[in-house]
């Protein structure tokens, strides 16, 4: 049994069958990449995992519990965090506050009326936040306005916001999209480090094969809403079906 079990998931948008009989099993403590050409249904699948979309049929189990019908914040409280393609951070808040909010969310749950406590008095939580900022090399920017950060820093901040929650499963939606090669490599190193130090299971959706083959231990290839193959990176590299899926796309274009 994997930590995440997707069984026979179907999702249809009008006339488009976005996901068709998707089965996926993610084993604990692995980095599992989902690759596939544009329109293969990668993002739809991810959105089904975090509660943004509800599949028409099928089941999604996280640690044996169904996530279907739960709201995004409930799914996050189960231990699933998500990094977005374009970083979603609290732009109007300081870097430290950005990291403090997930810490509060872990301690206090989805809602608590803590109107007469003082943020500054929560030294334990602030220490946790500072520790993660040190880990991602952003401690010197803790008072900076999050919106004023560079794109790379925003992504590192978002990663810190997810990691500080100690998620069991981290979902990453194209974490290196639009990045220069140097930044991509830095992100790869960061993710590797996170995986090795924290034993976090990761599901990565990625276009960049360099990233995929540097990180992933298992790879699922999705094409036209259906998983073609699931295997180790070594076996995927030379797989004829994979080549066909990607080549097929380029020929159509």
């Amino acid at each position: 049994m994997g930590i995440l079990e997707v069984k026979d998931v179907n999702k249809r948008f009008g006339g488009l069958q976005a996901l068709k009989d998707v089965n996926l099993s993610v084993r604990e403590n692995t980095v599992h990449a989902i690759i596939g050409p544009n329109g293969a249904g990668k993002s739809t699948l991810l959105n089904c995992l975090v509660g943004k979309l509800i599949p028409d049929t099928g089941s999604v189990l996280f640690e044996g519990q169904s996530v279907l019908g739960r709201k995004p914040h409930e799914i996050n409280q189960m231990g699933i965090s998500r990094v977005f393609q374009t970083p979603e951070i609290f732009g109007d808040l300081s870097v430290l506050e950005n990291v403090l909010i997930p810490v509060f969310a872990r301690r206090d749950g989805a809602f608590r009326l803590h109107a007469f406590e003082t943020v500054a008095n929560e030294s334990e939580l602030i220490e946790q936040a500072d520790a993660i900022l040190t880990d991602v090399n952003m401690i010197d920017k803790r008072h900076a306005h999050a919106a004023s950060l560079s794109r790379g820093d925003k992504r590192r901040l978002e990663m810190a916001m997810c990691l500080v929650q100690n998620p069991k499963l981290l979902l990453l939606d194209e974490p290196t999209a639009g990045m220069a090669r140097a930044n991509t490599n830095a992100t790869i190193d960061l993710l590797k480090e996170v995986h090795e130090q924290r034993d976090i299971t990761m599901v990565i959706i990625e276009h960049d094969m360099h990233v995929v083959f540097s990180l992933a231990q298992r790879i699922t290839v999705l094409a036209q809403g259906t998983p073609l193959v699931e295997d180790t990176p070594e076996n995927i590299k030379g797989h004829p079906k994979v080549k066909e899926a990607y080549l097929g796309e380029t020929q159509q274009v």
Partner: protein
Amino acid sequence: MLGLNKRDFLLLLVVSAMAALTPFLFQPFAETSPLAQFNGGYPDLMAKVAIFGIFAMGFNILFGLTGYLSFGHAAFLGVGSYAAVWMFKLLSLNIFPALILAILVSGLFSVVIGYISLRRTGIYFSILTLAMAEMSYRLAYSVLTPLTNGETGLQVRPTDPRILDRNSSANYPNLFGLELSDSYQLSLGNHVFTFNVGFYVCAVFFVIAFYLSLRIFRSPFGMMLRAIKSNQTRMNYTGLNPRPYALAAFVISGMYAGLAGGLLAVMDPLAGAERMVWTASGEVVIMTILGGAGTLLGPVLGAGVIKYLENIFSKINENVLEGWFHFLPEVVREPVVWFFARFTGEGWALTLGLLFMLVVIFLPGGLMQGGQKLVGLFRRKKKSGDDATTHSTPAE
């Protein structure tokens, strides 16, 4: 002290001192001076500034922190007034039962309106709140006349039951027997300062309201409210449910409005539906934006400026202007007086409108931003090269 750090405690002390010294601060000119008409130190205006300061401060907890722009907050003000007057009629003319009921009823009312309106965000939320407030206003005139006494408004009458103080001869709200209309006048040279019980009651509530607002701003709850304004998607994916946070902010600001409405009834025990009309809701929006949404003191400043313009500028009529410009030859005087009369007297709203436009265009952060810029300029001149930041204190 009081759960505040040194800087905030100092701020609270300054605000309390300013509230206590308002009768001096609003009365800068001698009675004999030609500028005496710019004096605002009379109880009615001072109390209004405190009351609308509370109203705007509460509105700011919703709009300034969460970004939800309510266009119906005057409904809670009106409900608070009605509740207070009913308490005067049924129970006693003591102000405490009236104010407690005003806060409770407007709190309940805002739970209902907030629960429905917060299903939408942005402009749709604003329209929903506007619709609810208009509905309350119309209902107060029609179906709810037994509760609101329609156009006449709800009044305290000698025939009221007043269970607790039936035998007292009082006709006006009081603080355990102390008449709110009582004033003490202090004459210093040509200056006359008025110390009014009613104003000080409002000032005490104002300081309490400011303290609570300060605590909310510094709390994790306040930080969550700012997170709502900043990015609701990230909030959801961080395991937080924005809806109850927004609803709590809505209800708190509704209760502030209820307190303000109750205090209006305390100062003048009469409640009419016109308090709920949509321009009254617009007024608190303008106060908050003019002063600076999201800042602690901005809304109060905005309330002060608007109430001052409304009460002082509106008194400057053409006769007064004639007096000022009598040194000019008549050919020039008439057009000059005509011109300035557009901006004063009945035209005070034009001055407010222009001021509002200037602030929104050049100081999107409101008058508070203007103040900060001035302080910044001043500091830079004083010690050039020093990186003096005028930013508010960070969270730790």
